[in-house]
């Protein structure tokens, strides 16, 4: 079984349709599946629901799909610094479901792990709890949150072997790991595809069972949102 495709377009062939839900990895611009997002842009598929912690920035990452009008709804925890997002949100053309970051991660994990709903303390007493079931366990109040299961997951890894076993690098792991599990099918782009047997079997972040299609997206010109440095003596 060959899971390696020559391009993002080929890797997504037959998987996209209008109105679908995508779970997308990345935090800010760190670890976003940019090649796959470009291919979704090129496909012209519309009315997308995107589950992603952030929505990119103007013209970068999911910001591209916002600008092109392909996204109908975002489920996110934070969407600062994005003018196109603000415009569409304020004029009502973009629906947004804000979800606390940890609840978002847990909802996606739950969706991928066969858990349709769970209880959490996060958001109790806030707008997030409005309309949700409240319940007391051992004297504390919790709200019920639902698992999220998308139609397709798009993620960015560092290295993968030919069996799809994948590792991430530093904080670029973030939501990629959990988003990959939150759909029946995940397409991954990585910086390097290595032979089976190269990666340490004890150190795989995402087993190949989740990574059904794979592309090497190198070379990457990774963007930094806020470049902060120190002087030598600090």
């Amino acid at each position, binding site marked *: 079984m060959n899971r390696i495709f020559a391009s993002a377009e080929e890797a997504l062939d037959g998987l996209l349709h209008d109105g679908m839900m995508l779970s997308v990895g990345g935090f800010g611009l760190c670890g976003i599946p940019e090649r796959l997002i470009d291919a979704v842009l090129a496909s012209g598929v519309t009315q997308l629901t995107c589950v992603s912690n952030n929505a990119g920035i103007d013209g970068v990452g999911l910001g591209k799909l916002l600008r092109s009008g392909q996204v109908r709804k975002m489920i996110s925890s934070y969407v600062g610094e994005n003018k196109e997002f603000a415009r569409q949100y304020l004029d009502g053309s973009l629906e947004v479901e804000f979800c606390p970051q*940890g609840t978002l*991660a847990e909802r996606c994990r739950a969706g991928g792990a066969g858990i349709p709903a769970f209880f959490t303390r996060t958001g*109790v007493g806030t707008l997030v709890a409005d309309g949700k079931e409240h319940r007391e366990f051992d004297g504390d109040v919790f709200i019920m949150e639902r698992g999220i299961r998308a139609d397709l997951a798009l993620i960015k890894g560092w290295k993968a072997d030919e069996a799809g076993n994948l590792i991430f690098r530093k904080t670029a792991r973030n939501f990629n790991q959990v988003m990959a599990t939150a759909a029946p099918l995940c397409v991954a782009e990585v910086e390097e595809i290595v032979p089976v047997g190269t990666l340490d079997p004890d150190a795989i972040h995402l087993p190949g069972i989740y990574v059904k299609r794979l592309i090497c997206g190198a070379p990457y010109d990774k963007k930094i949102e806020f470049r902060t440095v120190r002087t030598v003596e600090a």
Partner: protein
Amino acid sequence: MAWTRNDIAARAARELRDGFYVNLGIGIPTLVANNIPDGMTVTLQSENGMLGIGPFPLEGEEDADLINAGKQTISELPSTVYFGSAESFAMIRGGHIDLTILGAMEVSEGGDIANWMIPGKMIKGMGGAMDLVAGVKRVIVAMDHCSKDGESKFVQSCSLPLTGKGVVDMIITDLGVFERPDHASDFRLVELAPGVTLDEIAAKTGARYAV
């Protein structure tokens, strides 16, 4: 004379203990990292998936794959560990982080905190703030005592949408420190900044508190 932003951070740093795992919010709380006492091991968590935040990188050593929750480039330490977002918030929600120090727009006398949205303004989202205040063992707010308009930020009841209800354990402002031993108790004024009087703080505080 009231405390400076760095004084507030230094005061907050006195709540650290050796071996603590701590999550710092943006603004004044970030300055706490510069005030960790020598010889004390404090590990900083970044909720995007890291324990052991190092200082900002040297010019030319920035790594796009290594950022903090504020999306700033940072560096790693020898003891650094990376993990995914689900594990990061399992750690937060499960009460494994000892302390979080956060900024706030308002804190109420019941310990409610508001720091994520202003009605009528563009909503950017709550990020991980609701998870932190709900999950971390101890929540300290470090903030200016009054807003730019001179209004008390420690209030009877928050006017802004809440980030968490009844979750704050300690408030450190430029005027003093309020603390409560548990979430059922009232806040007590336990410390004044140098030169700040009880009358001054009473005049500038909307909340009810013990002295």
